[in-house]
């Protein structure tokens, strides 16, 4: 593994314009900061887990990296090139190196195409001159890789179960031999026994092909299992970034601590005796986020300075950074 990161994201910002009820056509739209000042780097073969509650900007971050939503500011440096500065056609060669898989496996497959066509489509799009026999051989090759029998090639998505559909989605992402796969809640819709199969598959493929993964999920146990390092987001802001074991063993941000204590452990002895840190209240509106630290409205440690000053995202140990004035 070389030490040059394949992906470097610097101060990425994504804003959405939202108009509220009763606005006149000429009223200026409000800015919703979906992703605010996010920076990280990712090496080949590594997995970055992104966790946070719904509405914290996990998916928007993923979409901004592949330019599915326009970024307001920042840089996405992929193998030395800033993708955000490139035009649509200049980006195209890089698109095949970054692939995505999605949460709802059935919804992300075209119901009117058979499995062979679905898996072959990226290849036909990016390399239109590939001879048909090669396309077929590649399709069969990736189908075997993800554990699908190649005689299923002529079937349609509705004939498959959720777990199999997710395998098809993975096969489609793999056919271009990408260097990075962004997985947006890939196992959330699956049953536990199937979830374990897909997680194992992703980890095997990663090892075999030296893939980098960005793994977005709200299930902290799964994220911790698969990730090398974990980023915790709250209201579009990074609150903590550390190696996955460190996040679990020594969470420093009050939000991370609460998040970890809320994850139920499948063991009655542990679960019934643990100290739960409850977060009171609701997520503040991202349209006008709290001043200073975004978490201060629900934080037990909050003091005056938290409302005045936004805490800097800084390192507190090796590979461990946190944004809090009063971190542990």
């Amino acid at each position, binding site marked *: 593994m070389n030490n040059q990161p394949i992906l470097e994201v610097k101060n990425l910002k994504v804003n959405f314009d939202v108009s509220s009820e009763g606005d006149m056509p000429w009223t200026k739209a409000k800015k919703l900061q979906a992703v605010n000042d996010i920076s990280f780097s990712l090496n080949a073969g590594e997995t970055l887990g992104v966790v946070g509650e719904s509405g914290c900007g996990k998916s928007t971050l993923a979409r901004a990296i592949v330019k599915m939503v326009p970024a307001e500011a920042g840089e996405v440096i992929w193998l030395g090139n800033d993708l955000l500065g490139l035009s649509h056609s200049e980006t195209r060669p890089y698109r095949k190196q970054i692939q995505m898989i999605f949460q709802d496996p059935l919804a992300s497959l075209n119901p009117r195409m058979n499995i062979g066509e679905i898996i072959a489509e990226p290849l036909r799009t990016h390399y239109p001159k590939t001879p048909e026999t090669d396309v077929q051989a590649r399709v069969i090759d990736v189908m075997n890789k993800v554990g699908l029998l190649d005689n299923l090639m002529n079937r349609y998505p509705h004939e498959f179960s959720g777990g199999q559909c997710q395998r098809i989605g993975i096969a489609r992402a793999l056919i271009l031999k990408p260097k990075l796969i962004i997985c947006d809640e890939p196992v959330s819709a699956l*049953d*536990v026994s199937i979830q374990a199969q897909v997680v*194992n598959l992703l980890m095997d493929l990663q090892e075999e092909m030296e893939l980098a993964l960005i793994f977005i999920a709200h299930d902290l146990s*799964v994220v911790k299992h698969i990730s090398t390092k974990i980023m915790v987001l709250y209201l579009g802001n990074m609150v903590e970034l550390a190696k996955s074991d460190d996040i679990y063993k020594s969470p420093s941000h009050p939000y991370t601590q609460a998040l970890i204590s809320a*994850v139920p452990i499948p063991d009655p002895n542990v*679960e019934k005796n643990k100290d739960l840190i409850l977060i009171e209240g609701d997520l503040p509106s991202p349209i006008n986020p709290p001043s200073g630290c975004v978490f201060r409205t629900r934080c037990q440690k909050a003091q005056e300075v938290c409302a005045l000053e936004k805490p800097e995202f800084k390192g507190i140990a090796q590979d461990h950074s946190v944004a809090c004035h009063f971190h542990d």
Partner: protein
Amino acid sequence: MSLIDVKNLKVEFKTADGIVSAVNNVNFSMDEGKILAIVGESGSGKSQTVFGMTGLLDHNGSATGSVKFEGEEILNLSNQKLNQIRAEKIAMIFQDPMTSLNPYVRVSEQMTEVLIHHQGVSKSDALKQSISMLDAVRIPDASNRIRMYPHEFSGGMRQRVMIAMSLLCRPKLLIADEPTTALDVTVQAQIMRLLADLQKDFGMSIILITHDLGVVAGSSDDMLVMYGGEIMEIGKTENIYASPTHPYTQGLMSAVPRLDDSEERLVTIPGNPPNMMKAPEGCPFAPRCRHSIDKCNSESPILVKASNDDHFRACHVSKEKIL
């Protein structure tokens, strides 16, 4: 006497492609003041079991067997009688609170309606009781927020409103069908804590349907593991977690990654859940089971005692062989 006693419950659906048997020979009983968790993957029949018990099946479904609630048979009663029971004694909450609440009607009206209709309470009394119930589920500023519409509440708050509404008539039994599946973990923790507190305060019983083994561990006294419409294992939650005696339960427990543990590789259950259109002849888990023997494919196992303390399992292979 147990609060609820289910014997040989069978739920079937007539579809254009034939009969689907969703629940097969389910037997269990539940004591007052307990929390029973029904665990299983999608399609295991956990929801249809309680829908069958309470007469909430789709029009093409039918339930047979016996369900005794406080000693009285309630299975397939007339709708009128069932409505009465479902209003006053058995309450239900569902996964998505937004689909259970009417988006056009203020929460105050939706809540007071329950009391006015079922208990003949005056409108002002009903409002007072509703506000105090919202207080009980810890909705801040209840007297003002009750006048809001459902969309003005967050997901967690909506689920609190649903819980408050279901408790208005002080039911004996609350059935919670995946109450926290749509919620974030931090909110889930709040709601589960709330349910546990309310269960003590109101002295009711809860049937908790979930697929999340973590939630089950933290909040149930007894648990029932279902697969392919049949009960695989039933017993005290602690005992089942300490020593699962059914291959499916074992598989399920080792398939979930634990936050407090680091395992190299997850143990998986090979294969896919059964197609209930053509339910397997013998044990529904046999095709995916690594301990299965010939008998498993031909004969459906019945629940037998696995140990003392009311721990039962349905498996042909002896407990010692699979441990």
